[in-house]
């Protein structure tokens, strides 16, 4: 497993909208690398005949009927929003490049 370098940390942080200083990027690169190395031990196991797992719990097809249920009052949710604006949720200016 290739070690995580600083540019990889920078990219992931950027995708997660985290602002890290170059020093933090260096620290996390080291820490993330050692975490991945630790998990790397799993590759010692022979998984040739094991189906890929997407979930830890054996459960499937949980669905509900297409019926309305009353729950929390919409107005109550609007009220506790950071910036309610009439019938709307107001959000700060969106930067075009954030799209």
């Amino acid at each position, binding site marked *: 497993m290739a070690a995580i370098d600083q540019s990889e940390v920078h*990219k992931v942080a950027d*995708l997660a*909208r985290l602002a890290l200083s170059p020093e933090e990027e260096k620290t996390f690169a080291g820490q993330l690398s050692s975490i991945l190395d630790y998990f790397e031990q799993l590759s010692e196991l022979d998984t040739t005949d094991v189906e890929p797992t*997407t*979930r830890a*719990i054996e*459960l*499937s*097809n*949980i*669905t*509900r*009927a*297409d*019926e*309305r*249920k009353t*729950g*929390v009052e*919409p107005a109550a*949710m*609007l009220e506790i929003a950071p910036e309610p*604006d009439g*019938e*709307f*949720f*107001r*959000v*700060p*200016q*969106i930067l*075009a490049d*954030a*799209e």
Partner: protein
Amino acid sequence: MAAATATQTKYEAIIGLETHCQLNTNTKIFSPVSTQFGAPPNTNISPICLGYPGVLPVLNEKVLEYAVKAGLALNCQIAPYSKFDRKQYFYPDLPKNYQISQYDLPIAEHGWLEVEIVDKKTQAVRRKRIGITRLHMEEDAGKLVHAGSDRLSGSTHSLVDFNRAGVPLLEIVSEPDIRSGAEAAEYGQELRRIVRYLGISDGNMQEGSLRCDVNISIRPVGQTEFGTKVEIKNMNSFSAIQKAIDYEIERQIKAVGKDEPIVQETRLWEEGSQRTISMRKKEGSSDYRYFPEPDLPPIEVSVEQREAWGGELPELPAQKRHRYEEELGLSAYDARVLSDDRAVAEYFEAAIATGAETKQVANWLMGDIAAYLNSEKLAVTEIALTPANLAELVTLIEKGTISGKIAKEILPELLTDAVDSVEKLVESKGMTQISDTGALEAMIDELLTANPDKVEQFRAGKTKLQGFFVGQLMKKTSGRADPKVANKLLSKKLKG
């Protein structure tokens, strides 16, 4: 058009469509709140659609059923094992900061649909299969209103309406099999016909229930590798899709001709100026960091379940078109028009089931009745005239009980007022055709007596005057004289 030089390269366009189709379920895909369009802002919301911590999304069973049915109708393979994934991106229309979608195990893959392309000049019909790469379920996002400007740029802040957040969508991705704007528009229309036939979506483009994004590139004919692909958005009608693509093909060919590079970007169709404009450059593919949605267990569609849903599919538009042509002997045009809307097709089938003449029923339905539905903005199910009434009307004309002209006269009443029997109605109105020889002969005798000069002229060789007598007879009978019988009798009597 500029004269083509002998060395001019011929290009072909490679087009794929990505369509988002809103399902018409009562409630959202993962939460039990209404999906009603046009409700006051932020009234159809719940902690699940707002992404509150600790909430548990649960899949609406109708969404799964509709997705499988759509997949089957599009000739797809239904995945025996499918799952949901989180697609991460940050935008205020998506309060969770991820969209629940399907990534590597979509519910349906590897399908196709058939389109019919009509040649404008010759009216010849060409059939073509367009591949369907995949179909998956996902949730819609909310709607943003940008304040202080009608565009994002220049706005000071934005307002969000989350009513649409969590409305179920099917995303349907086509193979890059489409070659022209006309083919793309036809593909979109066929897709809409199919979802409407299935009754899973209203397919309304104006309200955004059906949204199409186009991927398009050009390459010299004969070249196998693809050119740089451009995405076009913002078309809200099929004709806009066609025009946007035709514009874009032209633009790209011109650019290549001038050695200008095609940039990988998203362009918007501007309806006002009828052109596409650059919206943003796309550098590389976005990194959405998909991972399996831990709150939703996987979906396993059993063979029994798939077959049960498959058994509920109606006859689909393409099947109807083929059957109308091959079994009923209708033209490709008639078959297309009659099968476009499922309700009209079913009305048509109910009418001909009684034995009424197919082509006549088709003509009434596509002519006078369609015109009325159009002008009154009604569905065929909303008129008083039943399929049985129409069949009876056609049969009455066939039998000669009433003339086609009388039928047209009586139709408006039949469209608005329900009747049990058309025959009784025409009888009570005295509108039946007079084919009784005795009655007609008496009237003809009267006419000849009243116009001795014309009779003389006729006998002197001015045989065209027979038309005058036919006209007089029709006037006398308010158009009810059976023209065949009347003409025969007149000829005989005029000749003396």
